[in-house]
């Protein structure tokens, strides 16, 4: 299956991707800004995400929360999300409302600052603090997605600090920070605009030119600090987290080459062999045979800069100790690291990946998001269509070679959650480097 892809740049640097499909009268508009928490400066953690909230607070011609109202009144759905190295905004609407979505996105790209006020910032700061309490602080294991990158990247690395940010840093964010961040990163030459679905290409080009054409190019975003890190920790890392959870849970992460490399595809297949669905090794061994895990999965973080992470995530059954769980997960990693995988395992993983790819691309919003993703990270949206072929070239040899090189014991960072009621033994401590 191939999805149509056409792309071009406006003179101001905006990369535009069009993907026509007239199956249903639906159109998805998807805008990726190449900025995320990695671009934050010291003392302003959480700012990229807080800023995403502010983008729904209106712009010169759009009132506070009117962005939501206009899109929903048009029969559309919308949202935005912030990640380590990108922020996206997206709408899916009836196709006769394409112009509205483009106009709204252009108004906030071109004319955000006149609408920013202190009361809006104060309210959104409170909203984000409550988002933090909800998604991180008041949820068992909720801190894992800030603790794992913190463990896996050194303190000075842009991926080290918390994406949602600390309460203190959120308090420190000012309107001036908003203006500076906007001028630096929310520029057409730092963005990809994708339109997918039912639209005539000529009309889309005309609307994009009319709304986005006049927005001036930015002055060039500041270079990120060097993101490169070795694809190894050079020694086992370990952190034990006493948490208000019911069962022990362990994350084991390994550094690996980034999204898009040959090693990445081997790693992705390896993660499916170990931890995707019932036929995976973790499910067979940890859940069913040894009966020590209640759930077990494996995935890649899909980072495109510096190093990616290969992550095993396993939760214990009641009465299974954290130590036993941890040892069993490391034993599975040892097994694949030493003995590799079979062709049959690879075949299962690739079949699952292929079906997932085709079924997910039924949605215009998903097509648009994937096109923006490849355009943002690699400058080429048509790479979407090469994904099934990239997976099909992966062999058991490739996966075994990946495991042999990257899943070694001294490239593992272990984040172990232990219920507060039953603390682990003497080795409950902060980060320790065993090598």
């Amino acid at each position: 299956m191939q999805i149509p892809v056409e792309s071009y740049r406006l003179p101001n640097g905006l990369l535009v991707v069009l993907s026509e499909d007239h199956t249903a009268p639906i159109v998805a508009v998807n805008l990726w800004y190449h900025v995320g928490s990695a671009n934050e400066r010291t003392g302003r953690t959480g700012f990229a995400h807080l800023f995403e909230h502010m983008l729904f607070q209106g712009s010169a011609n759009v009132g506070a929360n009117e962005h939501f109202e206009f899109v929903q009144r048009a029969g559309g759905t919308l949202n935005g999300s912030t990640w380590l190295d990108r922020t996206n905004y997206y709408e899916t609407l009836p196709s006769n409302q394409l112009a509205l979505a483009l106009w709204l996105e252009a108004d906030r790209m071109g004319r955000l600052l006149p609408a920013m006020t202190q009361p809006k910032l104060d309210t959104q700061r409170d909203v984000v603090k409550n988002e933090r309490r909800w998604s991180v602080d008041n949820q068992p294991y909720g801190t894992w997605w800030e603790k794992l990158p913190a463990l896996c990247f050194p303190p000075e690395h842009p991926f080290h600090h918390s994406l949602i940010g600390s309460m203190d840093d959120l308090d420190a964010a000012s309107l001036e920070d908003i203006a500076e961040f906007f001028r630096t990163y929310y520029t057409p030459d730092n963005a990809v605009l994708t339109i997918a679905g039912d639209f005539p290409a000529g009309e889309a080009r005309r609307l994009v030119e009319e709304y986005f054409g006049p927005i001036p190019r930015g002055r060039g975003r500041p270079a990120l600090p060097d993101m490169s890190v070795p694809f190894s920790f050079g020694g086992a890392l370990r952190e034990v987290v006493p948490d208000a959870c019911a069962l022990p849970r362990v994350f084991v992460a390994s550094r690996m080459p980034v999204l898009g490399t040959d090693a990445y595809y081997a790693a992705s297949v390896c993660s499916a062999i170990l931890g995707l669905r019932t036929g995976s090794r973790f499910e067979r061994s940890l859940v069913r045979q040894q009966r020590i895990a209640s759930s077990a999965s494996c995935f890649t973080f899909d980072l495109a800069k510096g190093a990616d992470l290969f992550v095993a995530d396993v939760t214990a059954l009641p009465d299974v100790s954290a130590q036993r769980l941890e040892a069993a997960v490391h034993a599975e990693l040892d097994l694949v690291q030493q003995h590799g995988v079979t062709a049959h395992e690879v075949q299962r993983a690739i079949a699952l990946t292929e079906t997932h790819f085709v079924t997910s691309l039924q949605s215009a919003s998903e097509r648009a998001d994937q096109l923006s993703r490849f355009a943002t990270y690699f400058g080429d949206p048509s790479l979407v269509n090469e994904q099934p072929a990239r997976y099909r070239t992966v062999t058991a040899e490739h996966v075994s070679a990946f495991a042999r090189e990257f899943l070694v014991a001294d490239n593992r960072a272990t984040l172990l959650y232990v219920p507060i009621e039953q603390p682990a033994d003497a080795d409950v401590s902060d980060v320790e480097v065993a090598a």
Partner: protein
Amino acid sequence: MSSLADGTETVNAESPAASPRPEPGVVRPYHFPSFQTRILPNGLRVVVAPVHAHPVVTVLAVVEAGATRDPLGKHGLAVLTGRALAEGTTTMSALELAERVETLGTVLDTGADWDSSIVQLTALRERAGDAFAVLAEVLRRPSFPAQEMQRLAEERLSDLTQIRADSRGLADVALNRLLYAATSRFARLAGGDERSIPTITRDDVVRFHAEHFVPEATALLVVGDCSVDEAVQMATQHLGDWTGTAQPVPDPDASPRFADSRVHLVAKPDAQQSELRLGHVAVPRAHPDYFPLVVMNAILGGLFSSRLNLNLREKHGFTYGAHSTFDWRRAASPFELSSAVQTDKCADAVREALHEVRRMREEKVSDEELSLAVSYLDGVFPIRFETTAAIASGLANVEIFRLPSNYFDSYRQRVRDVSADDVLRAARTHLDPARLQIVVVGPPDVLHPSLVALGVGPVTVHAPGDELGADG
């Protein structure tokens, strides 16, 4: 405005002039995919919606075997049976079945809710025939291996342990317990609890499957790159000689537990935030006021721009989000408001939420609010059905809730027909602030005095492990 302005004044300092906000273009037509229903001689309903846009096929079997059919004391039997369907057949062990399904590139989804059980998968077109054969075998000939049954029971107990450590889980369980009469099946968890799960035997599961998984009680939905004839041929080949007679469908007790508002505080001293639920028993899914209620709920708490969210989130910043919903069932269904709020603002949030519920009943919604809700529900309709799985799920609702076969063709017109008077009447008839049960999970030292001071009803404090007075 910014120290950074020096040297950057030419960049974005003069905002480019804006074009006026555009008007919508001409609406392009949309029709819910047409489908045909064939009834095989054994009573199996086969509903086929050919959709050829992408090379995939979804097959979804819906069976009259929901949790409302659980025998007394065996709460969780339907859900356990649903999960256990994927644990092996008379020709394949659990892992052989998983291996077979996954090398076909698909995932077998089995389970149950209050009204039905399902078996579902989505496969690439060229593997659809093989996948269909596996699904049919799972439906007809599960083996329920003793060892896997024991593991599933242990996993359910493990899930319960996790639910009880999580504020959200505790709030949902407590509301579930408190809305319906203690003797109602709905007062107990659909998936069963620590007391009911150990009483369920393999024989119970085998019997439940034999009684309820029969062709007369099953609808098979086939959606995607497949013709009606192909689908009927597959169904006939794999399920044509399936036999069995449907049992009468039960009419579960859905009476409410309390006649008046009460506050139920579940003490979680270490909580960093308070989980808030307000709810009462409302009406069945098939109620004639369904469309006015859906529009009413969109305005009250269904949309981002709903009264609840704009008040609790955007005006006060108490929360990341506040929503309301009907948890639709065949029987009288719960109406629920939910939010996670800053603990020191929890009583304020309850007061504001109650204010919004009362306001729905006191005055007509504005033209702007009504048109927002109606045009959203009307316009978003095609977006809800982009995938074969979403279309199959929509058709499953038609089967489960016994909706008319033209339900989706008339849906948008029925939404547009809802008036502000209809919304007011629906709110006055079906929302009752005086009956709302209020559940709060959080630190009792802050919450208790403020909830008492609020004066909306007697406040009872529970420990997280409390049975909340539910009948055994």
